[in-house]
C-alpha cells in the first residue's frame, strides 16, 4: 500500500496553488477578516489565547509551589536535625520531644518496636539530665520534668509490654528485660 500511496502522493503533489493564486487567495481572506472583525464580546472571551495565559499563570504558580515546598522541606529537615541535639532549656527542645520523638513513636508499628523506642526515650531523658548536671545547669524544675518524663516513658513501655504478652510472650519477656536493664543502668549511673 505504501508504494500505491507514494505514487498517488507524488502525482497529487503536482497539484498546488501557484504563488500568485495563493497571494490573491490570502488577500481575499484577509480582506474578509477586515470587513468582519472579531466582536468585542469574542475578544473578551480571549479564545485560546486566554487558555494559554491561564496555562502560563498555572505553570508559574506550579513553579512557585514547587520552590516553596522544597524550601519548606529543607527548613523542616534543618530544624528537626538541630532539635535532635537540644537539651532541656534550649529553644528547640520542644521540637525534639513534641515533634521528632512523637513522629518516631507513630512510625513504630509493632508493640515490640514501641517498647524499644520508649526505652530509648527514657535513656535520652536521663542522659540529658546527666549532661545538664555535668554543666551545673540541672535545676530542681528540670529534675522534676526529667523524673516525670522517665515515669511516662517507662509506663508507656510497660503498657506496650502488656499488649505484647497477648501475642508474643517471648518478645514481651525480651522487651521487659531490656526495659529493666535500662532503668537499672540509668539508676546506678545517676547514683554515682
Amino acid at each position: 500500500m505504501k508504494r500505491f500511496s507514494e505514487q498517488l502522493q507524488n502525482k497529487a503533489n503536482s497539484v498546488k496553488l501557484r504563488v500568485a493564486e495563493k497571494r490573491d487567495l490570502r488577500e481575499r481572506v484577509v480582506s474578509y477578516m477586515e470587513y468582519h472583525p472579531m466582536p468585542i464580546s469574542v475578544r473578551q472571551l480571549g479564545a485560546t489565547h486566554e487558555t494559554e495565559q491561564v496555562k502560563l499563570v498555572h505553570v508559574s504558580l506550579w513553579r512557585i509551589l514547587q520552590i516553596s515546598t522544597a524550601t519548606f522541606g529543607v527548613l523542616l529537615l534543618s530544624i528537626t536535625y538541630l532539635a535532635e541535639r537540644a537539651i532541656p532549656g534550649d529553644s528547640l527542645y520542644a521540637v525534639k520531644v513534641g515533634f521528632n520523638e512523637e513522629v518516631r513513636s507513630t512510625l513504630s508499628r509493632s508493640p515490640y518496636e514501641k517498647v524499644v523506642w520508649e526505652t530509648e526515650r527514657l535513656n535520652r531523658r536521663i542522659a540529658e539530665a546527666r549532661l545538664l548536671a555535668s554543666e551545673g545547669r540541672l535545676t530542681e524544675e528540670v529534675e522534676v520534668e526529667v523524673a516525670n518524663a522517665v515515669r511516662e516513658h517507662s509506663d508507656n513501655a510497660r503498657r506496650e509490654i502488656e499488649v505484647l504478652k497477648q501475642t508474643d510472650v517471648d518478645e514481651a519477656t525480651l522487651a521487659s528485660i531490656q526495659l529493666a536493664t535500662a532503668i537499672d543502668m540509668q539508676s546506678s549511673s545517676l547514683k554515682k
Partner: protein
Amino acid sequence: MLDDNSMESHESRFLNAFEEYSDALFRHASIRISDREKAIDLVHDTFTKVWSYGRDGHKIDSYRSFLYKVLNNLIIDEYRKKKESSLDNLLSMEGVDEGNFPELTESTTEALAATIDGQKAFELLHDLPDVYREVLIFRFIDELGPKEISEMIEETENVVSVRIHRGLKMLREIIEKETNIREENRITKQKFK
C-alpha cells in the same frame, strides 16, 4: 491590552492555519471537483466560514480537521448543485445499504492497494463516483485515518473502510479496462498496417 492580544492571537492563529493548510485544501478540492478556479473559491469560502464560526464565539480546537470538514461540506453542496445522476446519488439516498464487512481489515485493503499503479490511479480518480473518490483522497492523499475520515464525512468507520475497499476495487477495474482498450487498439492498428 489583553483584548488586543487575544484578537491578535486569534488572527495570527487563523492566518497560520491559512499558510499551513491552504495548499492541501486546494489540492483536495481540485482533485475532487476537477475545476481549478472553483477549487480556489471553495478554499476561500472554507476559510471565511471558519472565520465567521470563530466570530460567533465558537472555539476551534483543531483547525486542520475543522477546515477539512467545512471544505468537504462545500464540495458536497457543489455536487448537489450539479445534481449528478450517478452512483453517488443512489448511495446518498436514504436506506441504501452499503454493506457490512467486519472481515474487512487493513491488510486486505493493503493487499488490494499493492496491485494498483498509483500514478494511473491518480489520473483515473475522476472516473470514480465522489463517495469513493472522497474517501480515497482523504485516506491516501490527505493521509487521514479511517476514524478521522468517519468524523469528517459523518459516517461510521465501517462505512469508510468499505468505501475505501470498493473504491480501490473500482480503480483497479477501471485501470484494467483502460489497459485492455489500449491493447486492443494497438493490435487493431497493427492488423491494418
